[in-house]
């Protein structure tokens, strides 16, 4: 590589700050809409999540007002169904997940010694998708068409015959829209933790919070696709009458439950683990000693992540599953308590061996211990099948889930809020309000939800809008409602406290809590670029002397302590050792994420109102928009080595083998692969378990199916040829050949689908259509990859030394070929599998 280096004349700290800020800051006024900076987007995520939390809280208060007395007539059953469905949906999808994403987006680069996340524009796109999707869901309440089938949308209640309006469609499309945001964030967080760290920060030096977020993000990558698939299938059933969950046509309502809880149970741990990361960060700070059991905690969280995927059926213990399967899931539900306990004992040991200081965040840590441990204990009770059968769908379960979710997420979150809010505002908390706010929340919460254990044990079922006065539930419900209003007053005080902090809090400069993590090594409020120079880490990154490190970094004594051609630069490292590997050049502010999210929102709204061709039109615009994104940020292909400071020269990300975009594609394909595996699971499940099999008409793939199979076999060969041709000269010919193959495959699959029996007749046919449609859709996206690459080749941005787009394209082509081949074989194999059924059903 040639050295091209116009960098780096040392500057004064003030001048360096001004130059970096000019490059990194987001605009003011209307330009705020183009912001992509992680500090700005992280704060927006958290603020928006808090607004949705307040909305969810108002819904909860309305529910408690209705249930305060027997035979109340405050709201009728239709409205009540919408209120509790929306309360659950808002709290899970619009508050908890976006809040943890916002916290991670704001904190991780600061904690890991980077200037931003890996894909700033994707961060912004994710935020806008979340905001628009959430607005669609919540806005539906004002039109009286809010989702009303519960936050879990069980079929057949949510199927067309029983929910004929658009209530369920709003949930399915709105939540899927929000999930796009969550999956984007998950991939970005994963890659950012693995690659965007300060040099020297090897895996064993990473702060525990980063380990927690890495495991959480990977769980999201494989945990969310089953729900996305389930939503797509149910929407196909509702919109086009293609049966997947209809038992009269070879579907099964229980398939929805399996897919939903395959997402839904890991979701509980996806919410809990970041909160546990907050606890693991705060306790060493306030105990004044390093955490005990760093490695044991990493083992515990990885074990917890895996085990959480083996529990989903414990939400379905009463549906009639074979005893042995029940026993597997019951045992797994009990075993998962062990890694949770490992963390709790590590935290208690750290406190016991330290000199704990009971500041306001520690009050919430105390609240977390009490509430979460109680929720965990009732969780072990519910893991036992005989008890579960008794308590199922009763208020005992409502009490348990609130103890787990509020104890395991809201209390740690409030601890984190009081701990990091001064970092956001640059001001200290007004303690006179903080302490009574905590006690109102703690007492109000326990009064509300502890009593629900009793109402549940006395037989009160969930989701009833009123109850008779003769069962003795009145006084418990009244006290629960009173507790709910006390809890609300506590949250109102916290909100007041935060507003007062912005206005009247005492200012401080750096490291309020005497912490040892990097985010406190910067002045507060943080600068747009985080660090004037990037540190070299030589100790574990939760036990650093940030008071010494901070001024050195501000003076530009670390890596990249200069500006260069107005570019936004940060360092990427080797994943395991933390050795500096390359310089990542990041894109700056742009309206493209907002425009793309608006177009995606238009596509969602068009589908909601049944304008499917209009939706397709907007989807095409979104796809073209993404090509524009890629083309709008070209980087010269022949930059060569660049000065990184401290005597180090590194190549830019376009000229290395494993930059973040390549890794992000790998993780995105893992996510996509989980969705495809869930689709295969659904096909096999309906074949094996659903009633009304075998179908009257069998799908027999003709020659078009076999030719499409041959086309898919050619795809990876051409993908490799493209990269080799680029090294030797020009990749245009193999790119053109692959485009021809893709077009042929799409046409052949369309022919095969057209030749099938009516897809509304049976789940066997509808599933075959979706499997082949999946292959065709991926071939279409493959064409977009080719179009993007051709434009870049013609513009001179793809050359033999810089062929990142081609290598990313190869990943996509390989994946498309693999899943396409499996999909066709699955359709080809189904007639034989149906034949096997004939003897037993």
């Amino acid at each position, binding site marked *: 590589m040639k050295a091209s280096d116009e960098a780096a004349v040392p500057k004064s700290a003030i001048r360096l700050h001004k130059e970096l800020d000019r490059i990194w800051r987001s605009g003011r006024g209307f330009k705020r809409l183009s912001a992509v900076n992680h500090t700005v987007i992280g704060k927006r995520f958290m603020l928006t999540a808090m607004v949705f939390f307040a909305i969810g809280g108002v819904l909860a208060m309305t529910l408690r007002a209705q249930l305060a007395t027997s035979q109340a007539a405050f709201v009728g059953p239709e409205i009540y169904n919408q209120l509790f469905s929306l309360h659950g949906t808002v709290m899970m999808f619009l508050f908890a997940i976006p809040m943890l994403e916002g916290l991670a987006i704001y904190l991780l680069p600061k904690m890991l010694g980077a200037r931003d996340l890996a894909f700033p524009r994707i961060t912004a796109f994710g935020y806008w998708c979340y905001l628009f999707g959430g607005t669609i869901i919540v806005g539906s309440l004002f039109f009286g068409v809010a989702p009303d089938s519960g936050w879990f949308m069980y079929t057949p209640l949510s199927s067309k015959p029983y929910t004929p309006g658009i209530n369920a469609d709003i949930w399915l499309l709105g939540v899927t829209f929000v999930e796009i945001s969550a999956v984007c964030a998950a991939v970005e967080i994963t890659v950012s933790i693995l690659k965007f760290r300060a040099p020297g920060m090897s895996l064993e030096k990473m702060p525990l919070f980063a380990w927690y977020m890495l495991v959480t993000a990977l769980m999201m990558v494989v945990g969310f696709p089953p729900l996305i698939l389930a939503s797509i299938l149910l929407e196909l059933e509702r919109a086009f009458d293609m049966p997947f969950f209809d038992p009269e046509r070879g579907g099964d309502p229980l398939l929805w439950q399996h897919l939903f809880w395959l997402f839904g149970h890991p979701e509980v741990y996806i919410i809990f683990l970041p909160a546990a990361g907050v606890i693991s960060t705060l306790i060493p700070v306030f105990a004044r000693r390093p955490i005990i059991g760093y490695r044991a905690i990493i083992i515990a969280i990885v*074990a917890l992540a*895996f*085990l959480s995927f083996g529990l989903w059926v414990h939400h379905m213990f009463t549906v009639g599953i074979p005893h042995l399967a029940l026993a597997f899931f019951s*045992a797994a539900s009990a075993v998962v308590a062990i890694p949770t306990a490992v963390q709790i004992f590590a935290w208690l040991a750290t406190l016991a061996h330290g000199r704990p200081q009971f500041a306001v965040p520690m009050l919430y840590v105390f609240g977390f211990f009490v509430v979460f441990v109680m929720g965990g204990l009732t969780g072990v009770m519910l893991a036992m099948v005989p008890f579960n059968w008794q308590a199922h769908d009763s208020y005992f379960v409502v009490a348990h889930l609130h103890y787990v979710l509020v104890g395991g997420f809201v209390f740690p979150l409030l601890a984190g809020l009081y701990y990091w809010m001064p970092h956001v505002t640059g001001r200290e908390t007004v303690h006179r309000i903080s302490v009574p706010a905590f006690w109102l929340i703690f007492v109000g919460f326990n009064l509300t939800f502890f009593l629900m254990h009793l109402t549940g044990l006395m037989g009160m079922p969930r989701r009833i809008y009123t109850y008779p006065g003769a069962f003795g539930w009145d006084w418990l419900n009244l006290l629960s409602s009173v507790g709910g209003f006390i809890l609300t007053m506590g949250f109102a005080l916290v909100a007041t406290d935060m507003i007062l902090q912005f206005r009247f809090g005492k200012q401080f400069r750096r490291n309020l809590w005497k912490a040892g993590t990097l985010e406190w090594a910067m002045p507060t409020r943080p600068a747009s670029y985080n660090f004037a120079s990037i540190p070299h880490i030589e100790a574990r990154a939760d036990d650093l002397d940030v008071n010494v490190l901070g001024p050195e970094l501000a003076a530009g004594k670390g890596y990249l302590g200069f500006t260069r051609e107005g570019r936004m630069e940060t360092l990427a490292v080797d994943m395991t050792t933390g050795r500096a590997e390359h310089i990542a050049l990041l894109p700056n502010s742009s309206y493209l994420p907002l425009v793309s999210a608006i177009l995606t929102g238009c596509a969602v709204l068009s589908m909601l109102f049944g304008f499917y061709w209009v939706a397709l039109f907007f989807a095409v615009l979104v796809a073209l928009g993404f090509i524009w994104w890629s083309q709008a940020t070209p980087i010269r292909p022949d930059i060569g080595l660049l000065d990184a400071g401290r005597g180090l020269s590194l190549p830019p990300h376009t000229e290395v083998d494993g930059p973040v975009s390549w890794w992000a594609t790998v993780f995105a394909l893992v996510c996509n692969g989980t969705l495809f595996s869930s689709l295969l699971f659904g096909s096999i499940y309906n074949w094996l378990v659903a009633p009304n099999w075998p179908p009257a008409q069998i799908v027999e793939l003709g020659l078009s199916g076999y030719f499409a199979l041959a086309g898919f076999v050619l795809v990876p060969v051409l993908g490799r040829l493209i990269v080799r041709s680029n090294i030797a000269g020009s990749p245009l010919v193999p790119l053109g050949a692959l485009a021809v193959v893709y077009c042929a495959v799409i046409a052949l699959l369309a022919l095969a689908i057209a030749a099938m029996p009516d897809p509304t007749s049976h789940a066997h046919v509808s599933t075959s259509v979706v499997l082949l449609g999946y292959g065709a859709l991926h071939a279409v996206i493959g064409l977009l990859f080719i179009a993007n690459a051709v434009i870049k080749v013609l513009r001179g941005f793809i050359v033999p030394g810089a062929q990142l787009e081609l290598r990313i394209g190869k990943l996509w082509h390989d994946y498309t070929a693999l899943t396409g081949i499996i999909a066709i074989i699955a359709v080809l194999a189904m007639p034989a599998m149906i034949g096997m059924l004939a003897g037993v059903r």
Partner: protein
Amino acid sequence: MKPASPVPSHRMLLIVLGFVVWSLAFVVLYGTNAIGCAFGWPEGLQRNVLLGLFALHLLALSALGSWTWHRWRARRDDSTQPAPLLEYLGFGLTAAAFGATALTLLPTVLVTMCAP
């Protein structure tokens, strides 16, 4: 060219290997139980098949545990290499996966196969 990393990124797979085997065991036994019940396999046959699969996965985890243990011991004593965190986690998580497999699938020995 920059020198290769002393700890290649694929070594991070050590962290997940043990629990991937646990996941496999869980899915294989759950799926086989479902197929056996749907096709009306005799109870004795189904239990023997499941016990065989259960033992196979425990054996696989034992072999993996032994391999990760020796890897960790070898790397722990090599002062020229970076700290062997991945090897430590690899062994620890394989041991945890062995325990999880034994506990979660133990009902195969006792519980009725297909009664709903």
